[in-house]
């Protein structure tokens, strides 16, 4: 039997969390979680070595029965513990592994209740990994929901002065999003019938036996003709089942022929919007974004890093993994509106960033702006746009982590993040100035850095899309100009000009070696991805063409 590596990736941080929660090894909390994180990275390297880029199918798949219950005449429900990685998730789990270690590495400023803090970070890591690894929609949802718990406490306990407000706001927003997704999940679960599981239930095939497309079609026809009793139907939450419209029972609410209409939208359209907004709150899209700046401002630096670096990506991942394959026609139908939301997010986030006086809030709004490119790319329904969107996810993961760490550097020293309270930092902190300049130029999309590739392809996809208007791409392009505006303005204000500190007692030492290590690592990563973007494109290429072929 081969090693269940994917399960190990989830279990190792859970195990570490258990050890930490027991409180027995109090003094070594950071070391334990860093160790767990490094083991995880080791496993990721093993995955990378064995990963086939030539195929779009899932690899390292693990599947076990998990939940099975009967609802009498309503049929049976099956949820599986089903893990796997493919071109979409692979880059993201590597990102998660690396960013988690960096967050732990930079957690020195956490002095209180360290074992609980690191235990929660480990829980967060496990649930993030679970989200990216789950193939079963219910399993994904479970991890997705579970994520809320560590995040809530991490902000609410170790946060800044308004931590209660921020954590509650985060909680309510996210819970609302989860409810939307839950509604869609229930509708999907009841409307779709898993042909394979049904075949097993009626003893059409035996466990372990091959199940061909013809077999599936036979079962589907038999269900449609009423040849299989409804109590033998098996509803599952397998993402692959929901992605095939033929599995949708013709009398169900989600069937395209269903007469159910509410406010001009059919049930499928409603389900699409529920999923879209549910995931969109995570991204976040305007106008569901106001939790993000507050959460970031209050969260301690490493939590911000995880939040911006990985957590936000789950929103876009949910669109690409579930929303689009489940509701391709609906998504296509609304692609112009989606592009519009993307463009507005870009512009709106950028305008808000221009108005900021708090450095961390500025970075938070820039995140909103940069995530808008992801939506713009996805809504283009072109290969370039999707590639750009996925690239932008990874690139933003690297760059936003870098930016938040940089904010943390100055906050650790002075506990003040107001842009106007600093000037001429270049003379006191040359290394810090250098890496901040690099991060700013990388974030404003200078060629040579990863940000450029993500924005270039998202915009190109959107501009050349046949489904959405080119106006949105042009509007999104304005975001590049505004981005240059707020980043360069901030850079000039804080780092250039005459040396000035609001409080003359502030002791501003330049970067320590420990800080440099992670900052340079992230900076160089962005440079590498910008110069050799094929590192990511090779991973995603097959996945994207596969999805395109599936939808069109």
């Amino acid at each position, binding site marked *: 039997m081969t090693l269940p590596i994917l399960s190990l990736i989830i279990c190792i941080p859970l195990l570490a969390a258990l050890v930490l929660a027991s409180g027995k090894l109090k003094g070594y909390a950071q070391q334990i979680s860093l160790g767990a994180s490094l083991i995880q990275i080791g496993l990721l390297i093993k995955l990378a070595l064995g990963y086939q880029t030539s195929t779009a199918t899932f690899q390292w798949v693990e599947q076990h029965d998990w939940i099975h219950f009967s609802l009498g005449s309503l049929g049976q429900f099956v949820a599986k513990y089903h893990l796997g990685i493919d071109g979409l998730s692979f880059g993201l789990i590597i990102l998660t592994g690396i960013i988690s270690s960096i967050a732990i590495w930079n957690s020195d400023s956490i002095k209180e209740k360290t074992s609980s803090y690191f235990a929660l970070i480990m829980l967060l890591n496990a649930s993030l990994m679970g989200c990216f690894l789950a193939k079963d929609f219910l399993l994904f949802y479970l991890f997705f929901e579970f994520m809320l718990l560590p995040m809530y406490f991490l902000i609410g306990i170790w946060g800044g002065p308004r931590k209660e407000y921020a954590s509650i706001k985060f909680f309510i927003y996210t819970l609302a999003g989860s409810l939307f997704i839950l509604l869609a999940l229930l509708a999907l679960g009841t409307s779709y019938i898993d042909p394979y599981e049904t075949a097993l239930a009626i003893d059409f095939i035996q466990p372990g036996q091959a199940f061909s497309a013809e077999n599936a079609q036979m079962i589907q026809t038999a269900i449609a003709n009423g040849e299989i009793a409804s109590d033998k139907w098996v509803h599952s939450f397998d993402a692959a089942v929901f992605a095939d419209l033929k599995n949708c029972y013709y009398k169900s609410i989600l069937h395209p022929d269903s007469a159910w209409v509410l406010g001009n939208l059919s049930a499928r359209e409603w389900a699409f919007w529920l999923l879209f907004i549910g995931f969109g709150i995570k991204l976040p899209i305007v106008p569901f974004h106001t939790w993000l700046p507050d959460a970031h401002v209050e969260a301690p630096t490493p939590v911000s890093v995880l939040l911006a670096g990985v957590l936000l990506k789950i929103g876009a991942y949910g669109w690409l993994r579930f929303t689009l394959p489940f509701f391709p026609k609906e998504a296509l139908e609304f692609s112009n509106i989606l592009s519009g939301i993307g463009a507005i997010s870009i512009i709106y986030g950028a305008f808000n960033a221009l108005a900021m006086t708090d450095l961390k809030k500025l970075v938070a709004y820039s995140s909103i702006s940069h995530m808008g490119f992801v939506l713009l790319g996805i809504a283009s329904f072109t290969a370039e746009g999707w590639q750009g969107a996925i690239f932008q996810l990874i690139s933003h993961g690297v760059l936003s982590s870098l930016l938040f760490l940089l904010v943390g550097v100055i906050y650790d020293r002075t506990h003040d993040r107001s842009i106007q309270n600093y000037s001429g930092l270049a003379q006191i902190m040359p290394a810090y100035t250098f890496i901040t300049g690099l991060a700013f130029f990388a974030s404003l999309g200078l060629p040579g850095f990863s940000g450029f590739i993500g924005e270039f392809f998202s915009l190109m996809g959107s501009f050349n899309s046949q489904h959405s208007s080119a106006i949105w791409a*042009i509007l999104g392009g304005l975001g590049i100009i505004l981005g240059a505006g707020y980043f360069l303005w901030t850079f000039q204000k804080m780092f250039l000009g005459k040396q000035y500190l609001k409080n003359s007692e502030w002791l501003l030492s330049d970067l320590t070696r420990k800080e440099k290590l992670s900052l340079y690592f992230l900076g160089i990563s962005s440079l590498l991805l910008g110069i050799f973007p094929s590192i990511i494109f090779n991973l995603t290429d097959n996945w994207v063409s596969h999805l395109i072929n599936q939808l069109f």
Partner: protein
Amino acid sequence: MSSILFIPLLPLIGFLINGLSFPKLSNPVAGIIGTIPPLAAFALSLQLFLQFDGNTQIVPLLDWISVGELSIPIAFQIDQLSLLMLLIITGVGTLIHVYSSAYMSHDEGFGKFFAFLNLFVFFMLLLVMGSGFVTLFIGWEGVGLCSYLLIGFWNKKNSYGDAARKAFIMNRIGDLGFLIGIFLLFQEFGTATYQEVFEAIKAGNGSNLGLIAFCLFIGAMGKSAQIPLFTWLPDAMAGPTPVSALIHAATMVTAGIYMVIRANVLFEMSPEVLHFVGWIGLATALLGAAIGLFQNDIKKVLAYSTVSQLGYMFMGLGASAYTASFFHVMTHAFFKALLFLGAGSVIHAMSDEQDIRKMGGLKSQLPITYITFLLGTIAIAGIPPFAGFFSKDEILAHLYHHDIVMWALAIVGSALTSFYMFRVFIVTFHGDFRGTQHQADHLHESPIAMTLPLIVLAVLSVIGGIINLPAFVGGNEFLAHWLNPILPEGSHEALEVHFASLEFLAPLAAAFIPAIFAIQLYGSKKAVPAADAEISGIQKIIYDKFYIDEAYNFLFVKPIQFLSQFFYSFIDFLIIDLLVESTGKFVKSSSNELRKLQSGNIGFYIFMMVAAIAIILAWTLKSWIF
């Protein structure tokens, strides 16, 4: 092929060494490490140039991006056009590196300065060597970065930081247009590689060509400082003077002209865009020359003069006179770099004074600077037989046959140029010294590292015309023959010029008469430009640059600031958050009310339970009875 790779690689290595080891290296070492790469690149370019057999050479570098059906390779294209650009960039670049080693010698950021200069040369080479629009764009943005870094090099002064930021953002506006042009190219042709695109256009494929050309030209307007995106260039003079000479006169700002010549196949298919290019060029040429008339900062005059001369180049492009425009790119690189370096030498001698009203009579103390600056002035004024005369005259000759109105206006601009250049020259070098005693005590000719580049550039400004000496004065029109293979057919037709015609005499008159007038006014009568407070009327409007910066501030900057405040303070904070919070408050208050039901009183619970059962029963009975 390996030598081709080394041309951009060497400056990159120079950048890395100086950048990584700054400030550990001593200034002379950093200067040598910084100067060798452009010099070696120049030698390699010269070798390539001499060995060039007339066939375009493509050097594939890497298969950069391959996504679905889209593939973007990175490759270098060596042909007639890129070879000449290589020579200009590395040649003038080397001279300016040598000059900088003396000019910047007292600066604490010496090594950093050379690192940035090398990085600039790298990106500029990438820009001209790339075999497609994407590589061009990477270089294009890269030189923008270096321009930002070097304009704001002395960043302790806030206004310098402002200038750097303005340059970058204004260029970004142009770059968005360029980017859209690239998207359109991919849409139409599925590629942005020069050869593939131009072959397809020649074969009659592709629509929207006018739109593509227009979008690409928006990029050129930003980079080459044309109306309406020109206001960054005069401000860019905040950077050290060698930077102004290299980036903001000789090389980077001509990238827009390079791009149009490179894409001449595309632009020829869209005559209305070429028309637009010509008129934008004309308007910019006149505006720049007019503002230059009354500026008193020696670098500002040269900056507006650059804006104006770039306008001439675009005018030439508008008349499809590609060779003439490129000729002017070359001669302008010589004489404008010379003038800037000369100005730098003056500023150096004057202890960082830039106002010509506080100079005067410098010719005796700075003899080499004086003579070379004079030669540069004659060259730019268009006085024969200096380099500027031939190149400008060739543009004018084409305009004469293209559009007589444009020609006449261009002659006016030419006259303005001659006047303001001689004004600056006379006020700076002749008359009485008007500076402080301290400055007078320190007046000195610059060291050899600075005067040598001046002399070399002066020689080139004098004899540069031979590159494309027209047939009617016995020349062989080398440049026209050289560029012929990459230009549209028929674009190289020798224009017949008669010595006694208006066409020939008008430019000469426009060069000589204002020059004599300026010499009379500022030389013989010893007039000195008025102090700021005394300037009034139209002169004040011109002196204040027609208030264009103020207008932009009012039209764009202020509304954007207002919008950002409005979005944040009103929409985000008031509307969205209020909605969210009131939802929260509603839940909280209603649960507060509901909580009262959980009184802990068992009797109350039982009562509620019975009541509920009663209601359910009643409901069931209702449907059962009726």
